[in-house]
């Protein structure tokens, strides 16, 4: 058989199904009977099934090995999606939905029905045997839920089996249920679910109508309905064990408890393979419901629910206070005694789970981690992290997809505690701000670079981020730092902070928004460097294309048509460049300042060829900011940068007046001159200026229209310049980090002294 490539979800699903069919626990062969059942459940015509079996090679072999089984499953999916059955289609068909299996008859099903009665829509397979729950729902709630349930069941069947959303979870869950009930001869778990729905549904009539019913339509039909009724009523106590399709937590419990020893391993495999079906993930409907409930207590979705109100609300769920207390502990992430929307959803979700018999986890599952609302709005990680597919129990929280967010979440408590020295107990509630404060505390401590706001910036260039930065440049540093600190990995923060420092230190004139100039859009950086390209007719087409649109005409550098002084032109040029694609007139004024622009151009050229346009962009941003006030200094800085870029810093001093390339000669002498000027300045200023110049250069670059087909030399020059810039910035970075370390050490030593000096009056 040809090789079979499966997506991750498919892999897991197939593995689950194989385990299910692997009744003899051989892990190699799926029992024919079970497989045939499965295929029948796929609701395919018999001849198609025969065809599938033929094609997967089982008829040849006489049994279903794992590969045959997988191929067969894939063919089932192909057939179900209406595509012709062909072996070649196995690997060519992309985005194939998972094969759907409908359990029609099974004595297990009869057990399941009661068990999953509430999960009417969760298992499309149970559509045939679902009537009881909807009926119950109908009884309890009247038409609303029933209709919704019916509607849900129908829609559920039509939906593909992607394990993410609840309606689509049914197919994946059905194998779970099958398996589960296969392996559990009987036992409390089965009975519990059976018993659960009964009492669970009984008191439902006392359900408080209120807002809950209004959201019933949304809920009914899936695992929501049971939850919904649970919540709605809050008059019923017996924690029903109606299983939530999306909560295999209990499934896992059951499986681990019940499974025969030989099956434990398969259960493990199954659990892990069911990672796509995150047990604690909140479905959209559920989330909507939670949000609505939140609104009833607190209309402002960004606000808090005070502890007392939350206590009342959750007390209605009739869970024991001890468990509610534990749920609160889990869900109140920032320990402030109030619930944000995310915390509230997490708490609600846990309450629902508990009411349905799921044990509470020891730690908050990843999918329930609250989003960092008080931070950047763009950090919409939140519950979506659970989708990544965390294997096994919800107690585990393996950060997989969104490492930054969960890891940062988890670091909060530690950071909070570690920072307790900087905060009194009264400040503990603002744990999220402690991080930002931490960052900002470092900034003022660094005097040399005159860092105003240590705004961590993303290390990776991001257009969106750059735009945000642009918008927020004048915004509060806290907003910056918080957002950025939480959008980037902790280890990035240091880097970003230092990086941002280097940028923020660019211009001494920068006061409020030192903000790291937004990552230069590649085009921008390139564009700014295009000046050089244009002038030098460099920039081979493709490479320069990314840079910026140079004006087709590449006015030779020495064309001082506009003859304004360097300083004067600089801002003008910068503006012109920054504003839009520069035109030749703009290029021309550069001529007199060609030194400056050559810097830019050289830089731009180098930037063109460089992948890292961040610096350029940031510099361009800084340049824009600094334009008015700091034109002269920035010019000089740019020149200094150009000097730096030209070669390694070591080379720069030595290559005084030497044209390294035919392209570079004009800028070089100027750079040399500027270099001397720079050397006269204090280091900090130089740094800032350098960065400012770099930014200026970068800023000019964006506006420079890209030229087409530039010389190799220009490219090389730009490469050189970029490298020099890199070295300069790296140097800056290391220096700043060193300063940071020094300051931190000082602080620590001071704190130790303080501790020691405290009067030991108690002893």
């Amino acid at each position, binding site marked *: 058989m040809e090789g079979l490539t499966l997506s991750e979800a498919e892999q897991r699903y197939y593995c689950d199904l194989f385990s299910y069919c692997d009744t003899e626990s051989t892990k190699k062969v799926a029992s024919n009977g079970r497989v045939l059942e499965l295929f029948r459940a796929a609701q395919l015509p018999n001849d198609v099934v025969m065809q599938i079996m033929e094609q997967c090679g089982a008829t040849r072999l006489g049994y279903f090995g794992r590969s045959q089984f997988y191929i067969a499953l894939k063919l089932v999916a192909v057939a179900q999606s209406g595509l012709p059955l062909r072996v070649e289609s196995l690997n060519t068909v992309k985005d194939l939905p998972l094969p759907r299996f409908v359990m029609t008859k099974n004595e297990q099903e009869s057990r399941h029905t009661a068990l999953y009665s509430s999960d009417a829509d969760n298992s499309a397979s149970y559509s045939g045997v679902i009537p009881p729950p909807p009926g119950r729902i109908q009884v309890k709630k009247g038409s609303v839920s029933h209709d919704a349930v019916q509607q849900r069941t129908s829609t559920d069947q039509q939906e593909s089996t992607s394990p993410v959303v609840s309606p689509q979870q049914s197919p994946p869950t059905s194998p779970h249920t099958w398996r589960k009930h296969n392996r559990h001869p009987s036992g409390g778990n089965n009975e519990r679910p059976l018993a659960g729905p009964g009492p669970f549904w009984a008191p439902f009539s006392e359900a408080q109508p209120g807002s809950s019913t209004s959201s019933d339509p949304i809920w009914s039909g899936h695992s929501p309905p049971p939850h919904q009724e649970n919540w709605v009523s809050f008059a019923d106590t017996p924690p029903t064990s109606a299983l939530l399709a999306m909560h295999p937590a209990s499934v896992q419990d059951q499986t681990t408890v019940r499974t025969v020893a030989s099956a434990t391993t398969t259960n493990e495999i199954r659990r892990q393979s069911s990672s796509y079906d995150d047990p604690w993930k909140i479905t959209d409907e559920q989330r909507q419901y939670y949000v609505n409930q939140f609104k009833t207590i607190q209309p402002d979705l960004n606000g808090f629910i005070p502890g007392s109100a939350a206590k009342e609300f959750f007390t209605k769920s009739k869970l024991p*206070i001890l468990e509610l207390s*534990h749920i*609160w502990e889990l869900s109140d992430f920032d320990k402030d005694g109030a619930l944000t929307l995310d915390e509230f959803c997490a708490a609600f979700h846990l309450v629902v789970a508990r009411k349905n018999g799921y044990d509470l986890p*020891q730690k908050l599952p990843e999918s329930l981690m609250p989003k960092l609302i008080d931070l950047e709005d763009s950090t919409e990680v939140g519950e979506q992290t659970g989708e990544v597919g965390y294997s096994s129990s919800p107690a585990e929280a393996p950060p997989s997809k969104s490492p930054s967010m969960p890891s940062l979440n988890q670091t909060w408590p530690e950071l909070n505690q570690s920072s307790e020295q900087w905060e009194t*107990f009264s400040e*503990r509630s603002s744990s999220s701000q402690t991080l930002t404060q931490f960052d900002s505390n470092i900034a003022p401590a660094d005097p040399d670079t005159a860092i105003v706001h240590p705004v961590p910036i993303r290390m990776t260039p991001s257009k969106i981020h750059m735009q945000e930065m642009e918008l927020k440049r004048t915004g509060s540093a806290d907003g910056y730092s918080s957002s950025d600190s939480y959008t980037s990995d902790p280890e990035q923060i240091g880097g970003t902070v230092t990086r941002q420092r280097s940028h923020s230190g660019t211009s001494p004139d920068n006061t409020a928004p030192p903000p790291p100039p937004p990552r230069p859009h590649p085009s921008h950086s390139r564009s700014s460097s295009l000046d050089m390209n244009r002038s030098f007719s460099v920039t081979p087409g493709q490479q320069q294309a990314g840079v910026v649109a140079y004006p087709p005409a590449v006015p030779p550098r020495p064309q001082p048509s506009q003859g304004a002084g360097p300083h004067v032109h600089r801002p003008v040029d910068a503006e012109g460049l920054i504003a839009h694609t520069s035109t030749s007139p703009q290029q021309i004024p550069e001529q007199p300042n060609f030194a400056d622009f050559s810097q830019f151009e050289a830089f731009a050229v180098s930037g063109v060829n460089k992948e890292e346009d961040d610096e350029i962009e940031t510099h361009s941003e800084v340049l824009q900011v600094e334009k008015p006030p700091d034109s002269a200094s920035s010019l000089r800085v740019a020149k200094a940068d150009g000097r730096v870029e030209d070669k390694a810093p070591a080379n720069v001093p030595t290559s005084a007046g030497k044209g390294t390339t035919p392209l570079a000669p004009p800028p070089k002498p100027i750079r040399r001159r500027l270099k001397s000027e720079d050397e006269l300045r204090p280091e900090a200023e130089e740094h800032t200026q350098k960065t400012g110049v770099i930014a200026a250069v970068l800023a000019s670059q964006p506006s420079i229209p890209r030229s087409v087909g530039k010389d190799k030399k220009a490219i090389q020059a730009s490469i050189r310049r970029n490298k020099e810039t890199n070295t300069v910035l790296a140097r800056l970075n290391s220096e700043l980090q060193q300063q940071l370390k020094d300051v931190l050490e000082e602080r620590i030593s001071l704190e130790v002294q303080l501790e020691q000096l405290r009067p030991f009056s*108690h002893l």
Partner: protein
Amino acid sequence: MAVCIAVIAKENYPLYIRSVPTENELKFHYTVHTSLDVVDEKISAMGKALVDQRELYLGLLYPTEDYKVYGYVTNSRVKFVMVVDSSNTALRDNEIRSMFRKLHNSYTDIMCNPFYNPGDRIHSRAFDNMVNSMMMQVC
């Protein structure tokens, strides 16, 4: 590493007491109880003056040949009493302070829980975990 950690309410009844299980726990309970007298003595000696963080830490209440007892009182007169093994000489005062600080932080976390009624026994798992981390690891 503490041998016994106790949280005493304002009215001098225990909210939470946890000892290293191998020892005779009753002995520790008695020790904590008697240490409350020392705590009260120190509190009254402090006067109503400033009740800053430093004075929340009461320090060594009294040493015996086997162990030392440290005390810490919060602004709401909730007392934390910690018994440490005397043989553990590596424990510096700073460490004790930090342990009490952690205890205090966890206690405030519990307080933030609206489902916790002040005066109830403490059943928080988070608190348990934190205390376990502080307890001596006895094989």
